């Protein structure tokens, strides 16, 4: 199991220009494996920026990020991509499914560069869709899905490469309360399967959920408060 630790991480956009802006300022924290951690905070607090650095989507301007024993903050893009595709699964606020493709085609998309055997890939995809009650929509175009269905398709896509860590950026922003509760139920399932889940949200349904083990509150790019929920 890999622990994620951040040591004095800073992210500055437009460095050296008049519009220079520090989105993350000296953040140090530890994300425990096999737990659900929520990064909480208002818009502009730096939640998504921090999440993108943890998920190897971008690199910090300074400071270090460790995944287990490996320092990932200084790795070139090629290695970051390799870690990203094997270790992380992403669920985005806008779901980011590719319109015009079917649900199953969207789900298997992250596996293309790894070129697994097609038959076993399709089997895995159908298993995931069945687990999230979406198998009957496998051949439907994603643009025709409801919000909840699109969310579940995005979860299936995030899990197709069997990643250890699942990253969800504002996953309930486009869902009603009922679907948000359902989403947290799905996260609980994943934790039971031994996954580490990292969520950013300013939705009380998420950070007050009993599924969440710890909450890290961010404000203006710094850690404001960290709390552990009783499991």
């Amino acid at each position: 199991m890999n622990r994620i630790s951040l040591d004095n991480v800073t992210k500055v956009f437009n460095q050296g220009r008049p519009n220079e802006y520090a989105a993350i300022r000296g953040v140090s924290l530890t994300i425990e494996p096999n737990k659900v951690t929520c990064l909480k905070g208002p818009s502009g607090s730096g939640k998504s920026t921090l999440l993108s650095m943890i998920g190897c989507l971008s690199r910090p301007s300074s400071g270090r990020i460790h995944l287990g024993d490996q320092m990932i903050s200084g790795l070139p893009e090629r290695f970051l991509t390799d870690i990203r595709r094997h270790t992380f699964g992403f669920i985005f606020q806008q779901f980011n499914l590719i319109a015009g493709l079917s649900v199953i085609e969207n789900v298997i998309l992250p596996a293309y560069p790894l070129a697994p055997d097609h038959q076993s890939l399709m089997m895995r995809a159908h298993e995931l869709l069945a687990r999230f009650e979406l198998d009957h929509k496998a051949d439907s175009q994603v643009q025709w899905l409801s919000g909840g269905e699109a969310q579940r398709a995005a979860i299936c896509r995030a899990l197709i490469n069997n990643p250890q860590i699942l990253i969800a950026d504002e996953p309930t922003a486009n869902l009603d309360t009922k679907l948000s509760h359902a989403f947290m139920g799905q996260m609980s399932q994943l934790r039971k399967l031994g996954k580490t889940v990292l969520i950013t949200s300013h939705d009380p349904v998420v950070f007050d959920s009993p599924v969440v083990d710890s909450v890290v509150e961010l404000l203006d790019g710094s850690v404001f408060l960290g709390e552990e929920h009783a499991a």
Partner: protein
Amino acid sequence: MSFIRRQRYLVDYILSSMLRRKGKNFGLMLVYSLIVFMLASVMLFTHALKQEMGLLLQASPEIILQRMVAGRHDFIPETYLEKMGRIRGVTERKGRLWGYLYDPSVKANYTLMVAEDQALDATEVIIGSAIARARGIVPGDYITFRSFDGESYSFQIKSLLDHETEIVSADLVLLNRKAYRALFGVGEGVYTDIVLSVSNAREVPKIAEKLVQRLPDTRPILKQEVLRTYDAIFSWRQGILFVLLAGAIMAFVIFAWDKASGLSAEEKREIGILKSIGWETSDVLHMKFWEGAVVSLLSFFIGYLFAYLHVFYASASLFEPVLKGWAVLYPQFQLIPSVDGLQVATLFFFTVFPYVVATIIPIWQVAITDPDAVMR
């Protein structure tokens, strides 16, 4: 194995991606195929014509000897056959009689030639198929020519010339020696030119040199020169067509550049999504390379196939008037299918290669951006 499977996944994605943007891709392929079709048609047709000419002229004599008077071609006396003496390497020499005759009824020039080997009577002719078509006559009918002194001579058409040779015989009339002399007022003892057959092609220049020495007022025309002239004429015509097509090619380049390189916001977002879910920059570039390759290869093959059918099965009906170049009497003939590998390679290089490059470069600019762009 894994590499091939990865490429298959990428091609699979590209095909579904292209089907999602049907309008853009089919429009592009249509214009692309049309350009390849036009260029390939001209190239195939010119090449086939040159081949055909070469094959037909194989049987023609190696040297044609013409007499020059004041820099102009004149009748050559029969005595020149004796005067030139015996030249080693020359297997046969004979005088030819031919000339041109204008037919006002179809506003066309015919080539009249005496055919000793056809055993024609003084009132019989054999004519080229284009003349038969233009005049609406068939073997057995009569054709009338006006002689040099205003007399009219009628000839019965014995037969038509072989369709296979129509490229050079479209306007040809073969007739009897006596009829020729009567029609043009050419007296006995002269020929239009003298032809010499040489068995060893390497001896031809030496023989030509000897002829000029022995008969200083003559001009030898070598078969290689005739072939070269035809080659130049067809190449020149091909060049003219290419210049005319240049505008279309430029328009295509601008169109292709815009279509292939101008990434829409939707496409940029898609690349961002792919990167965020674990695709590398190289995967995106590979994918776009396949897209460019699929579009350009498919268009190239479609364009080339239609050009092939157009040239060899539809007699290149679009470019015929420019490339064949007969003013009134158009020969009708089926070209022998012939493809020049170098020409295909050249066309391929100048159409497929730039397109694939034009697709890759702008994608590379988008593909190297941080994948977290989709999260912002």
